[in-house]
């Protein structure tokens, strides 16, 4: 059985200016342990798909299942890494941010501290646990977010363009680290991006979305390349071109 099933999912927002169909008839199954990148142009509805799976927004059509059970609202079984670092708690240290989910569950202080330190090391921030978010760089903050989501041991990790606001070099470093973390943790990941190279570098499958409004899944491209991925290899280039062609039609539809 698939870990996550989206069946004919649609989302129409209704506001004062009328209705806006963000997602239409979106169907996808995610298997346990895969790294799925959802790739699309801005406004195609990819973030809406993630928000519905996270439970932040309810679909207006179709249904979403996790482990065969319908998703109703947010829950600890779906960890989310947000695009901005505004989701970190400024008044807590990096360690306490990571341990936040454990604290919610009532884990003893010493125990959750040990867990947090293990995840600090996992994201390459050993010894930085006593710092507050305001003392950390953008890349470090995203590492804390990833550690916070993983420390809570969710069934799936949902990442909404987590490296979108970082500079190119930091982004490349974090992509490689995320790849390692994914390999070690064996977590299922749904990763939203508009960066083709990022998608090909990280994922086991890339889903390309049609442009919005009413964005839907256009094609799914499997990426059968060994890790760590060599970005200048022929296989990488070939997959890149394949995905690029799919996306290009969405950016320039009338060529």
């Amino acid at each position, binding site marked *: 059985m698939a870990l996550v099933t989206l069946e004919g999912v649609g989302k129409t927002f209704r506001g004062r200016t009328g209705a806006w169909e963000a997602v239409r008839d979106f169907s996808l199954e995610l298997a346990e342990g895969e790294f799925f990148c959802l790739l699309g142009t801005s406004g195609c509805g990819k973030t809406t798909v993630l928000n519905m799976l*996270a439970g*932040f927004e309810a679909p207006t059509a179709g249904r979403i299942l996790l482990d065969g059970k319908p998703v109703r609202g947010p*829950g600890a079984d779906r*960890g989310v890494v947000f695009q901005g670092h505004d989701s*970190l708690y400024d*008044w807590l240290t990096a360690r306490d941010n990571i341990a936040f989910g454990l604290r919610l*569950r009532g884990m003893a202080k010493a125990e959750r501290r040990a867990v947090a330190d293990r995840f600090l090391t996992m994201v390459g921030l050993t010894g930085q646990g006593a710092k507050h978010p*305001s003392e950390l760089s953008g890349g470090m903050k995203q590492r804390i977010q990833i550690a916070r989501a993983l420390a809570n041991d*969710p069934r799936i990790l949902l990442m909404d363009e987590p490296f979108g606001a970082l500079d190119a070099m930091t982004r490349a470093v974090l992509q490689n680290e995320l790849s390692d973390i994914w390999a070690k943790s064996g977590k299922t990941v749904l990763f939203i991006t508009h960066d083709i190279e990022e998608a090909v570098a990280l994922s086991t499958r890339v889903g390309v979305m049609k442009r919005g409004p009413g964005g839907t899944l256009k094609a799914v491209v499997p990426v059968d390349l060994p890790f760590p991925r060599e970005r200048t290899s022929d296989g990488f280039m070939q997959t890149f071109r394949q995905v690029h062609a799919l996306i290009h039609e969405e950016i320039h539809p009338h060529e």
Partner: protein
Amino acid sequence: MNSRAATIGGYIAGFALLFLIWHLAALYLVRSVLFPSPFPVFERAVVLIEDGLLQEAVIASMRRILQGFLLGSALGIPIGLALGSFRPVRLLLEPWTEFFRFIPAVAMITVAVIWFGIGEESKIFLIAYTTVFVVIIATAAGVGAVGRDKIRAAQCLGASKFQLFALVALPATVPYILTGMRLAMANAFVTIVAAELVASNDGLGKMLWDARLFMQVEDIFVALIALGLLGFATDRAFRLLIRAFAGRFNPTM
């Protein structure tokens, strides 16, 4: 150079400059018995301190300010939190806050005296009154300004509604609450002087009023300087407290 030393040095230099300008203005510009230069005022201050009169007035005023301020904050914070958290409460109470905050505490002195007399109660009522609405509005605004992703992150870490409030919304609102309290403290100084001018047996406002009656210009200046220094010191103390207890909350002050 140490930034703390620079700050303190700046304050000292700033105050010294102020007193120098005052001195020069009194000596060469105004030359009137109605505008004393700093030195007679200091001499008078020393006399008032030796007689214990200045301390008495300062303590009387500060006690009222603190009592009213704490009462107003103790009422304002929970009301503001409720107002910011629950839509029905906001719809119900917002007309109150929007109505009363335009009736200045100074205008309420008359009813305060009628209700509570000229004793401590009327002053504490007025300070609490002037504090409570500022704190309510700042607190409610803070609750409304909690980042959406902070709430969502907690939700998908498994937070209950109570945990969302206690562990996310409340700490995220602290800087706003403190900013509101700091503004309210400034209001409290305005209010206490006005209240003591009109109806009181002691305090700095009373001292100002008596000095006017007996044309003791130096006493007026002593009271004015005392007010300025007290306000300045209180505000600094508040900022230090905020830094010590809530520096990590990134207060915008």
